[in-house]
């Protein structure tokens, strides 16, 4: 396994109370695999990503759990150790590429710096590698773009440069947090295409965080669905989309317009996601769930009703119930 996250809890201790942003997350990802992490806003996707990167700041803290990268524990590692891990073994891509790029430095300066921070290599060789990396993410005339400043590039180009930087050191793992959400359809599909082929080529594992189920369907091998700080369902992409087990996943899928339901009413999940500062007792989805019973006042544990598909629910679909 490239990464094994077990029972991760990341909380924010604010004046208004404890925000349990991540509250018991487990997942694994194998080399070259693409995992789609989906959920609505506030469900804890980004904080899961930041926890893995070791980028949780006050008032937040990883309160318990384990994050192992190729067997090596990252929770509790020193800041020095984490700095070596970041950019070299784990890289992150953000929705806004300017989180990665320095506006006052030329692209070549930043890229060469990113390589030389982790490796003894001549400037010339580093430059050659940067040029290849830009070519691989579909940037035309990479030689020229290397000499550009970020503001001279379009949004799509900047995101490509950020992706090229993430892949530069062929890290074990990349965490991409809504990397194409701000981009147009044709540019999004170019970037997904490039990320997909880079993962295949380098064996880098990729966590693709998004709220867009259709994007995940197109790119991911496996999917993990988050709700109120927990993963409520995970499995192979086909299994989860075709035969979802969790009532929340079923509701989400029903609310996406698709061509075979053109014009019909969409399924509505009633109500809104709960406030993670003040979660209801028992199952966090209980208040919105059509399958709820008195059993759901306790906390559901993870079960595996089907091979390679896990769910956190007392009454999952597809078990005597109708799908």
């Amino acid at each position, binding site marked *: 396994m490239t990464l094994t996250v077990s029972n991760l809890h990341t909380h924010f201790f604010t004046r208004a109370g404890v925000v349990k942003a991540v509250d018991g997350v487990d997942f694994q990802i194998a080399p070259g695999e693409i995992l789609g992490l989906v959920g*609505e*806003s506030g469900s804890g996707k980004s904080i899961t990503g930041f926890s893995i990167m070791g980028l949780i700041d006050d008032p937040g803290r990883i309160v318990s759990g384990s994050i192992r990268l190729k067997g090596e524990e990252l929770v509790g590692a020193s800041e020095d150790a984490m700095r070596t891990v970041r950019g070299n073994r784990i890289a992150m891509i953000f929705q806004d590429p300017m989180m990665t790029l320095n506006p006052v430095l030329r692209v070549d300066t930043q890229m060469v710096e990113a390589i030389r921070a982790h490796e003894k290599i001549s400037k010339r060789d580093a430059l050659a590698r940067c040029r290849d990396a830009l070519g691989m993410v579909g940037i035309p005339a990479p030689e020229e773009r290397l000499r550009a400043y970020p503001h001279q590039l*379009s949004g*799509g*180009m900047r995101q490509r440069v950020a992706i090229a930087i993430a892949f530069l050191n062929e890290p074990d793992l990349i965490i991409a947090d809504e990397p194409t959400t701000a981009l*147009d*359809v*044709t*540019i*999004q*599909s*170019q970037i*997904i*295409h490039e990320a*997909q082929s880079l993962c295949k080529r380098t064996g880098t594992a990729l966590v693709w965080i998004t*709220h*867009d*189920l*259709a*994007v995940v*369907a*197109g*790119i*991911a*091998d496996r999917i993990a669905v988050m709700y109120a700080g927990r993963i409520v369902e995970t499995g192979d*992409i*086909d299994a989860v*989309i075709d035969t979802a087990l969790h009532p929340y996943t079923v*509701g*989400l*899928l*029903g*609310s*996406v*317009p*698709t*061509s*075979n*339901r*053109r*014009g019909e*009413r*969409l*399924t*509505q*999940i009633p109500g*809104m*996601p709960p406030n993670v500062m003040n979660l209801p007792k028992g199952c966090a989805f209980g208040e919105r769930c059509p399958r709820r019973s008195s059993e759901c006042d306790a906390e559901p544990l993870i079960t595996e009703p089907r091979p390679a598909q896990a769910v956190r629910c007392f009454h999952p679909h597809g078990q005597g119930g109708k799908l």
Partner: protein
Amino acid sequence: MTTPILETRNATKRFSRTLDFAAKLAQRLGANVSDETVHAVDGVDLQIMPGEVVGLVGESGCGKSTLGRMVAGILPPTEGSIVFNGVDIAAMDAKAARKAALEIQMIFQDPFASLNPRMRVDQIIGEAPLFHGIVSRAELSDYVDDIMRRTGLDPSLKRRYPHQFSGGQRQRIGIARALAVKPRFLVCDEAIAALDVSIQAQIINLFVDLREELDLTYLFISHDLSVVEHISDRVVIMYLGRVVESAPIADIFDAPNHPYTVALLNEAPRLDQRNRNFQPVKGEIPSPLDPPPGCHFHPRCPHAHARCSAERPVLREVAPGRLSACHLND
């Protein structure tokens, strides 16, 4: 034949950025700067029939919002005209213009920015109908309750302020405010884009219900093809300020005509297409400051030929009810 409820004739909007003093000086000294003109919308002819839902799709900056604002009468066209119920809006007398302004309402993407934070919900919804005499002061409270119920809001919350509502509820408030003046035509500009998936479904269903209950006509602007496919009767595709294709919804999804439409449909992510091998169209969307000559799409088009960079393809009927602007149809 029925008259369209709304028509744009050669609707054109140019925004120009004139040079400031320093730039003019630089120009006099021989620097290569000039006044910049954005052709945000470039000669659009559009006809919308009463009761129709027309989806307007295109990538960022192609002019959807600008066209929507011209249709809603918020932005005057630089050239061309907007015709409502057969009458040019620019030629209407004051009374007719006021009536048209009420009958066409616009709903925006960001529900929060478009609501006055210091007004209570009942004031936000009730202000315009009271002012325009659509409802008397005595009936106002019941009127507001009724509209709130219709849009899925609990009338007992009417004394609250916008910040006390969730994003989805704020969008409902925005819709309620628009409906309060009894419009016939709604321009919805990315009206669900800022909402979470499960909340989007609630609002899409609301638009569908309201259309049936109130006999509304929509111009539904969205960059999300699957949402447009779900809600519209007809779709209009724009690229860099121009309409490139217009067709009934089933036709365009089953057999797109314009190469740009084909690319958009291929690349839009869909639930039923798993782990796919993306075959993206090449290149970036060109700057509207300096659009390519001839067919705007030619630098990215896999079928481009000599004529495409020389001559603008006209939007014309290629099959009954279907319009496309591509030289391949000749």
